[in-house]
């Protein structure tokens, strides 16, 4: 005991004992240590030299005296959960989500409207009207089934092939088009390539091109939601290719260790541009990785909108209730090319693509289901096709006609406030355009503001920015009462800081 007391006296955080010294002190039951460390270390393990069980802190397992490597099981991997067969018939009635007709029709209309919009915008790129586009052909079920299972205020982090989530949340066609055209109505202010959508109101975080970067970010957002008692889940979409990135590993591990209410939703569509899954991974897909991180995981038929719905619904319920992550791997197929910069006939056969288009398409399967229920028929189909096409064409024509935003928007939002050096650069561009404007497509852009009014505009911007930020902080991505309280506190605390 004298030794224990002496050890407790000697120990200070500043001593270089580090982690190695702590097991010793744990043995001696040093009180100072127990108070300031995590619950894991407080679970004092009972050491006994008479016991032959493993004592390693790193694993909870028994000894084995037979040399055996664990065989990864890729011959018969994790089974694929589905509710409907390929003809849209419910297989096991107890798995039928029994959704009301209105809701299921919304599924169908969201998927088909997305499909129509995809066709028109893909074509518009081919015609040189927009610079780039990515279609969602074949994956509409993954978007709509999962979006429908969430609350409207659940935060969404996507990769780039999740437009159906926005469609389901009633993002207007006008705004889809505005972003693709980069016109004055684009909420993103014309800064990003097409399909990089974002919507604060609909809790859809703006898409960025680097892959998988959203994964650890989604985990952080989920952690914040947990702390705020927001009763919200965060969903994070990514493809099977992006799952190879280090950020994916980071995200999974953090979500599990920090106990975050997050759904990881992997769209396994068979290809990462031209790279098939056989060259992307050697294990049993992405679902098999979940248990390695301690994450509850499931594999579903991504072309079965009810299977996606059921899995997401249950994952959401439990993630929020139990504060733990869930991994859903939705198996599907990318019917379209990777993007307008890709011609997939270079690396896959037309027959393969046709199979999925004709035999196992989420839209067809749902239509068959609707028809068999008497909730849809050929006449309604014809009428809806005409109507949806008309809606898309109208939005498209309007988007084409609008001007692009003022080039001054090159310089704002780099920081919350515009630094002096950047304002100088903005003025420099304005002066340059005064002399050389004829060489620039100024006619297509909203009128340039004359340079001498830029300063007064700056003052106005600074005042309104402060006001808008305060107002904006009241409508956080989570829009819950507790977050509004936090945001208000933040606003008050920063009103008097010393920065410009």
């Amino acid at each position: 005991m004298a030794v224990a007391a002496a050890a407790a006296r000697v120990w200070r955080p500043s001593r270089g004992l580090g982690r190695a010294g702590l097991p010793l002190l744990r043995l001696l039951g040093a009180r100072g240590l127990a108070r300031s460390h995590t619950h894991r270390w407080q679970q004092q393990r009972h050491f006994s030299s008479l016991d032959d069980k493993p004592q390693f802190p790193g694993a909870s397992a028994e000894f084995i005296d037979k040399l055996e490597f664990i065989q990864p099981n890729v011959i018969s991997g994790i089974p694929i959960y589905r509710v409907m067969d390929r003809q849209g018939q419910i297989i096991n009635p107890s798995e039928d989500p029994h959704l009301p007709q209105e809701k299921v029709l919304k599924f169908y209309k969201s998927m088909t409207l997305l499909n129509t919009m995809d066709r028109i915008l893909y074509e518009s790129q081919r015609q040189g009207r927009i610079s780039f586009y990515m279609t969602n052909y074949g994956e509409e079920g993954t978007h709509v089934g999962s979006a429908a299972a969430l609350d409207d205020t659940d935060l969404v982090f996507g990769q780039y092939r999740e437009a159906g989530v926005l469609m389901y949340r009633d993002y207007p066609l006008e705004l889809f088009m505005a972003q693709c055209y980069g016109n004055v109505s684009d909420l993103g202010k014309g800064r990003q390539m097409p399909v990089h959508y974002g919507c604060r109101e609909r809790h859809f975080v703006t898409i960025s091109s680097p892959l998988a970067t959203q994964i650890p970010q989604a985990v952080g957002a989920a952690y914040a939601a947990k702390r705020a008692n927001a009763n919200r889940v965060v969903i994070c979409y990514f493809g099977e290719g992006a799952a190879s990135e280090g950020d994916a590993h980071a995200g999974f591990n953090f979500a599990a260790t920090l106990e975050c209410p997050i759904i990881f939703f992997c769209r396994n569509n068979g290809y990462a541009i031209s790279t098939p899954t056989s060259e992307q991974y050697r294990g049993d897909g992405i679902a098999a990785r979940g248990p390695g991180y301690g994450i509850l995981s499931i594999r579903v038929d991504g072309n079965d909108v009810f299977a996606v719905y059921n899995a997401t619904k249950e994952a959401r319920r439990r993630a929020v209730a139990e504060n733990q992550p869930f991994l859903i791997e939705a198996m599907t197929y990318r019917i379209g090319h990777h993007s307008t910069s890709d011609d997939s006939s270079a690396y896959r056969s037309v027959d393969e693509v046709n199979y999925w288009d004709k035999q196992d398409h989420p839209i067809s399967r749902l239509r068959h289901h609707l028809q068999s229920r008497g909730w849809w028929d050929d006449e309604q189909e014809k009428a809806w096709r005409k109507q949806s096409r008309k809606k898309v064409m109208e939005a498209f024509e309007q988007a084409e006609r609008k001007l692009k935003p003022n080039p001054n928007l090159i310089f704002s939002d780099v920081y919350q406030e515009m630094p002096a050096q950047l304002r100088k650069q903005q003025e420099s561009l304005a002066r340059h355009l005064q002399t050389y404007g004829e060489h620039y497509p100024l006619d297509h852009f909203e009128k340039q503001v004359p340079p001498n009014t830029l300063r007064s505009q700056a003052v106005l911007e600074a005042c309104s920015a402060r006001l808008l930020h305060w107002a904006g902080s009241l409508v956080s991505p989570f829009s819950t009462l507790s977050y509004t309280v936090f945001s208000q506190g933040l606003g008050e605390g920063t009103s008097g800081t010393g920065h410009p």
Partner: protein
Amino acid sequence: MAAVAASAGWLLRLRAAGADGPWRRLCGAGLPRGFLQSASAYGAAAQRRQVAHFTFQPDPEPVEYGQTQKMNLFQAVTSALDNSLAKDPTAVIFGEDVAFGGVFRCTVGLRDKYGKDRVFNTPLCEQGIVGFGIGIAVTGATAIAEIQFADYIFPAFDQIVNEAAKYRYRSGDLFNCGSLTIRSPWGCVGHGALYHSQSPEAFFAHCPGIKVVVPRSPFQAKGLLLSCIEDKNPCIFFEPKILYRAAVEQVPVEPYNIPLSQAEVIREGSDVTLVAWGTQVHVIREVAAMAQEKLGVSCEVIDLRTILPWDVDTVCKSVIKTGRLLVSHEAPLTGGFASEISSTVQEECFLNLEAPISRVCGYDTPFPHIFEPFYIPDKWKCYDALRKMINY
């Protein structure tokens, strides 16, 4: 006799270590008595490790912020973090080993005080730490991430440059991660070598959308860190690790802010402008004193404080007055931040310059271990460059 004296000395040291006894046995120290003779017994070839290349000069006690307390730099950081978590219920601190207090003791006591949901360890993954921090900040909560050494910030480079810096711009201000602050120990420490000595500010200076800040002292550190935390843009706060213990001064107990993007003229002068940040400020301060004493040259010393966006006006105003500029940093010469300052100053103040702008920096090599005293831009190199400038 020397051997007896040496082993007696060893014994005394062992007794002083007291109950380290069982601990030393466990670690297999078990060396025979007198094994380690005193360093001088090995003759002139055995040298003591070098003393620091600078002398920390505390600033006068601040009077305008209320009660002060003697703090070193890591204690000033703890104080700033304590103030932040007290004021802002959304604020959380996370990173490797921050829970027990941190490898540099910057977070000691905070987990006990604020709870394990607010001060917590993450797995060992810098890209995860920063990505996670961005996500917290996107929801509006305050995220204070620690990267254990600036040398290890590079796995997080993509998250910082491609994500954090661009979040507000690319979303048209629909989303931002302004409430993210990344703190990281920075700069030479006497024995850090390649991977515990780096000053990577130049990599980040090239990235519009983030702010990069380096304090020179405990008082500066607390005020600047609080400003970074409260700033509505993602900030990187580099803490000179050699100053964690070596720098001690009176620091206000209550929170206070030192503005970002404002350089500070810490010594006025008329003949030469000297610019540095972090530890190097103390080196050039001493150079200024040497120049006055040996050459009768009056130096104006500027602590840049914020690397991005940097205070062009203060530096240019000074060079217009003095006509000569010397910029010094530990980071390698080529592409170092002195290049940016030099380039801008020659654009803005060309006709005022009496001599070429001088950069006294680390060599274009990785940071060596045993050669550190030769590598760093010490006061003699700065003095020599200054002398050449005066005689130009």
